[in-house]
């Protein structure tokens, strides 16, 4: 590597090195995607093979798993379930991006009393296992009359309760040179304009990351949806697919897998749609034309 250094001003990786990277990546992918292939294959297995068989490929293709899954659960159509999931995940994305970036800006770039202790407190809030606060939180939402609505799933996101994302955005904002705002300030920008016009656009990779993670994590968050939603009309795909499995009676693992695959599609699309924005950082101005 070091041998080519002095002459290689416009960096051009050696062709062979690039091939090696590709081969390495492909091999790693083969291993990593194997369980996913398994999941796909299992969604087409007949009932007697789903658990008992340890072969990758199904004996014959059982498309009825998908038919059962597409019929929905408990008279609620799959479209309704999908819509509910989308609504919750979409609301959470907006909430997290807005509220976490606001809070992060204050922590990263503004000075105020108690900044240190408050920041420490914020980090501490993710250290307490959430099982310990589950019941008090439930009682609060119940007192507010919000149980069996989507509020307990969305409202916390608008109040920046996920310190993970606040901290993430803080780290990205702290990585931006201070001169950016100084320059803006000289041009007469207050904190609000410099936030919206200078800092926010430059933090886009972090905001996109926040959006992607929030969408996926909210989508998959079985437990919160389970305890706060009562009415089957409000159920989500994630809840519905679990109702195929009941230890006290007959489970339908085949349809459960089929529904997992169906539930996966929207998050795959969301990821594919948003991941390309990840490259739009500051680096795009230079090398990565």
């Amino acid at each position: 590597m070091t041998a080519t250094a002095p002459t290689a001003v416009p960096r051009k990786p050696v062709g062979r090195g690039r091939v090696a990277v590709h081969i390495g990546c492909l091999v790693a992918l083969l291993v990593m995607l194997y369980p996913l292939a398994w999941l796909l294959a299992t969604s087409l297995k007949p009932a007697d093979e789903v658990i008992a068989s340890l072969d990758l490929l199904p004996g014959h293709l059982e498309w009825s798993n998908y038919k059962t899954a597409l019929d929905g659960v408990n008279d609620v159509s799959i479209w309704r379930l999908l819509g509910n999931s989308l609504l919750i995940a979409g609301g959470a994305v907006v909430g997290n991006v807005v509220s976490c970036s606001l809070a992060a800006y204050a922590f990263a770039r503004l000075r105020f009393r108690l900044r240190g202790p408050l920041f420490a407190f914020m980090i501490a809030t993710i250290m307490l296992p959430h099982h310990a606060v589950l019941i008090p939180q439930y009682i609060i939402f119940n007192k507010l009359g919000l149980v069996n609505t989507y509020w307990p799933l969305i409202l916390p996101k608008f109040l920046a309760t996920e310190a993970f994302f606040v901290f993430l955005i803080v780290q990205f904002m702290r990585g931006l040179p201070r001169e950016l705002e100084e320059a803006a300030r000289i041009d007469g920008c207050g904190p609000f304009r410099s936030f919206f016009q200078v800092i926010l656009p430059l933090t886009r990779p972090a905001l996109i990351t926040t959006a992607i993670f929030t969408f996926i994590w909210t989508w998959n968050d079985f437990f919160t949806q389970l305890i706060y939603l009562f009415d089957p009309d409000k159920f989500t795909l994630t809840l519905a697919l679990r109702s195929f499995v009941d230890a006290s009676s007959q489970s339908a693992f085949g349809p459960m897998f089929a529904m997992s695959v169906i539930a996966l599609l929207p998050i795959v699309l969301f990821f594919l749609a948003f991941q390309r924005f990840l490259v739009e950082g500051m680096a795009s101005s230079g090398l990565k034309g």
Partner: protein
Amino acid sequence: MTTTDIPASTARPPRSTSAPARRPKREREGAAWVFLSPWVLGAIVLTLLPMAVSLYLSFTDYDLFNAPHWVGLRNYTQMFTEDPRYWRSVTTTLTYVVIAVPLQLALALGVALALKNMRRGKGFYRSAFYAPSLLGASMSVALVWRAVFNDGGTVDNLLGSGGWINKPGWSLLAVALLTVWQFGAPMVIFLAGLQQIPAELYEAAAVDGAGKWRQFVSVTVPMLSPVLFFNLVLQTIQAFQVFTPAFAVSGGKGGPADSTLVYTLYLYDRGFVASHMGYASAMAWVLLIIIGVVTAVLFRTSRTWVFYASEGER
């Protein structure tokens, strides 16, 4: 892509320490609280209040159904002196942290770096490597994982090692590998961090005659350090609280022979299965202190290796 040219070029040079006129202090202080207001509201109502309740409960005997009654430090003394399973869960969790965190971070960083300068197929690889993380720890993942690591499953067939999930000595590794397998989140964060490094810094370094390794050490590492630090802190915190992978792989029981009974799984078991919410709350607060100490140490060391452009020279 061209839209971001302007601020990027105004950003150079990054290391001067000049400080032009500042706004009046009070105004900026007020602005800060405006930005913080949603967080403050959420922190008080949805975080501080429940945390205070759980702290109180940790000094009580509370079975969920009848009013809690004060027992002082009994939960804590019982935990430390009378519950061997508690101590086993502590060591299990520490082992898990030591296995899972470095492996996951190394993999995420390695893949992110490999993809960084890739010209073709970057989007494809990024998506493909992220794919396992899309699933979370759902029931279907749990079943797939158990099939792969079962007796006669793929791993057994390839290595002839028997099924890992059924061996007390190996099951925790299967749990850790589930976490490592889903390394998409730290990878994406690394990629986003790498994207933020101004290309000009590399160009300047190349002009100065720095080779690839040198560029990595003197540009990538310091510029990526805030993100590296973030991933390290967050993955460590999350690893201490690991729940879903252990729950999924062991079918919720922490078996075989308690080998995957990690801290929060045992906490959950005490609180929600056995209905000793007071005891579970005490466990939660001890964990908070453990994680707090570890995190504080990480923050302390960060002063020596994390570089923030906004603070100029460290």
